């Protein structure tokens, strides 16, 4: 499938996954890959920090939109922009929009804000989603990529409008919840891409999360990204002793031991991952996109480009009905 087609399928991509699976890195990679396919992209994150600024070699995200990667170039890349949307900011913005700016300060200073957020659990999550929906409606970019809270929390996060809809009856919050629910239910506006590792617990969790998202929220799911896969280079299965005997260069016993151990480790690692990939295919009927393990400790723009190449290749390998 052409990446442009996948990214044009809906205007909001919510990227979700358990802690440590590379969800933020994949959010950045999806944003960059969409921009390379010609779609202007806004990357939204909910908490400060994380790998995004390093991947783009850009300043930390703030509540003010910034350009993470300027478009142009021979291939006509579009821009990647990025910003933070924090729950506190979303709440303040919401109150201001509803003519309640006057009481915002008092709500905060008296602690009444805690009563509001306790009385209506999920209100912060809902207001964050409301902001994303506002970006979507205003068409601030061709694609919005939302780096969602860690899985487990992702379900609660996306459940917030349903929960609140029941709790608050009529009123502005209910309207907001309805608007967000409408967006979540429409696959042309919004879908979720799950990220996992090819390991036992992450696979279990991604399967659980996928079913919960479909059954309880009814949001459309895109292909699942299986991140951090290692390959087995051609020839690594060969017999090292034969290869060494045929080689003219002098290798010490230490060199040989290191080569042998590193190869054995890689083969074991890759085999373990393939078992989990197969388990995921059995248990979750979603197309998979495979992205490679990054060997460098602190990935930057070069690694982002190679991840983006791999992601494009993975999308190209999908069939046309996998979107």
């Amino acid at each position, binding site marked *: 499938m052409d990446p442009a087609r996948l990214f044009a399928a809906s205007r909001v991509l919510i990227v979700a996954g358990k802690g440590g699976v590379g969800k933020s890195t994949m959010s950045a990679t999806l944003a960059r890959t969409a921009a390379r396919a010609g779609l202007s992209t806004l990357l939204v994150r909910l908490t400060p920090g994380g790998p995004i600024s390093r991947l783009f070699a850009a300043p930390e995200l703030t509540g003010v939109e910034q350009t993470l990667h300027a478009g142009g170039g021979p291939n006509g890349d579009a821009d990647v922009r990025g910003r933070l949307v924090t729950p506190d900011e979303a709440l303040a913005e919401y109150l201001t929009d509803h003519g309640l700016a006057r009481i915002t300060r*008092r709500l905060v200073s008296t602690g009444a804000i805690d009563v509001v957020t*306790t009385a209506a659990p999920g209100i912060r999550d809902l207001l964050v989603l409301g902001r994303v929906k506002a970006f979507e409606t205003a068409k601030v970019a061709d694609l919005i990529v939302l780096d969602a809270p860690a899985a487990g929390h992702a379900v609660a996060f996306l459940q917030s409008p349903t929960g609140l809809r029941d709790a608050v009856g009529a009123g502005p919050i209910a309207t907001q919840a309805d608007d967000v629910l409408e967006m979540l239910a429409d696959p042309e506006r919004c879908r979720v891409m799950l990220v996992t590792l090819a390991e036992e617990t992450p696979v279990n969790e991604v399967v659980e999360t996928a079913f919960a998202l479909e059954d309880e929220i009814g949001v459309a799911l895109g292909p699942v990204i299986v991140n951090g896969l290692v390959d087995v280079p051609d020839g690594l299965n*060969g017999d090292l002793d034969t*290869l060494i005997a045929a080689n003219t260069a002098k290798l010490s016993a230490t060199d040989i031991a290191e*080569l042998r151990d590193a*190869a054995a*480790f890689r083969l074991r690692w890759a085999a373990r991952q393939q078992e989990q990939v197969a388990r995921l295919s059995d248990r979750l009927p979603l197309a998979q996109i495979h992205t490679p393990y990054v*060997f460098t400790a602190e990935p930057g723009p070069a690694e982002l480009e190679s991840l983006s190449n791999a992601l494009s290749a993975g999308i190209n390998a999908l069939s046309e009905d996998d979107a």
Partner: protein
Amino acid sequence: MNSVAALLEEQSVIVCVGAGGVGKTTTAAALALEAAQRGRRVCVVTIDPARRLSDAMGFDTDRAIGNAPQQIHVEAKGELWAAMLDTSTTFDALIRTYAPSDEQAQNILTNDFYRNIANSMSGAHEYMAMEKLYELHNDARFDLVVVDTPPTNNAIDFLEAPDRITQFLDHRLYKILVTPSGGLARVVNFAAQSFLRTVARIVSASVVDDAIEFFAAFDGMEEGFRGRAVAVHDLLIAEDTSFVLVTVPRSDTVHDAAAFIETLGAADIEVDAIVVNRVHPSFGSSHLDGLDNGPLAPFITVLHDSQTVAAGQDAVLASLTDELPAGAVVKIPFLDTDVHDLDGLAVLAQWLTPSEDTHHH
């Protein structure tokens, strides 16, 4: 004996902290198992709703561990117990403890606003984890409690949660919302009334009514809660309580871990040991660049990849572990410790306390 082994033999509380996805639950379970093997009567408690402790202990779902401690049958000099925190059950028990009458307890327990506090208020998981820790610490069946903490972005959350929620329950604002008698909820102050009307516009009137009813019913119980929060806090900073930080050698996680240590330090809490999970092996430092294009090329590529990972993780970890004595940092190898059951847990336990004495292995 490394520091971890010493903690397992000497301390009465071990709190495992760290980001999500680093293997904290499994590490807590392995520490508890090892302590039991060293003769302690230990209870491990986890907060995670995903049943990961059951998974780690190889339990199938119908034997899932509940809120009350259950003994796990292992061959050990001591005893191993496990409990899975149920936040709202624990909160309910606390309400029953401090309510002056059954009727008042019932009024609170059936209130929707209270249910929100117990189920989903930010910090409630952390608060109840610490509450459960306190309860088990005072349970004569155990001489060590190992507690797994919720995956938070902020180390201080579970330290501050008891205070923060107690303050919330004891807030000045709510005092003016209810009559001093604590009986029928009645708004006594006109300014507060108009303010509440505005709040009701944001959420809804029934939600505000629930809140007022709750605070009326809770009136008079603040003192008990405050006292308990102080006791819990004292336990966390006690001499025989230790903190073990769990991390993985990835730069973002390690940066978070360094921030954890700093925040804990500001609260006068030292991290006594660091467990680094998923450490890649290092296959020496041979540089065989001249052979890159020969038939050995795939072997050399793979060796160099390993060396890149090893060098990277060492650099990332150095900033974190340099501050601690060598015995206080335990590295757990990636791939060799995949815990599905008690046997896997026992292997992990051995890695956690590598020692010259083979006391039980």
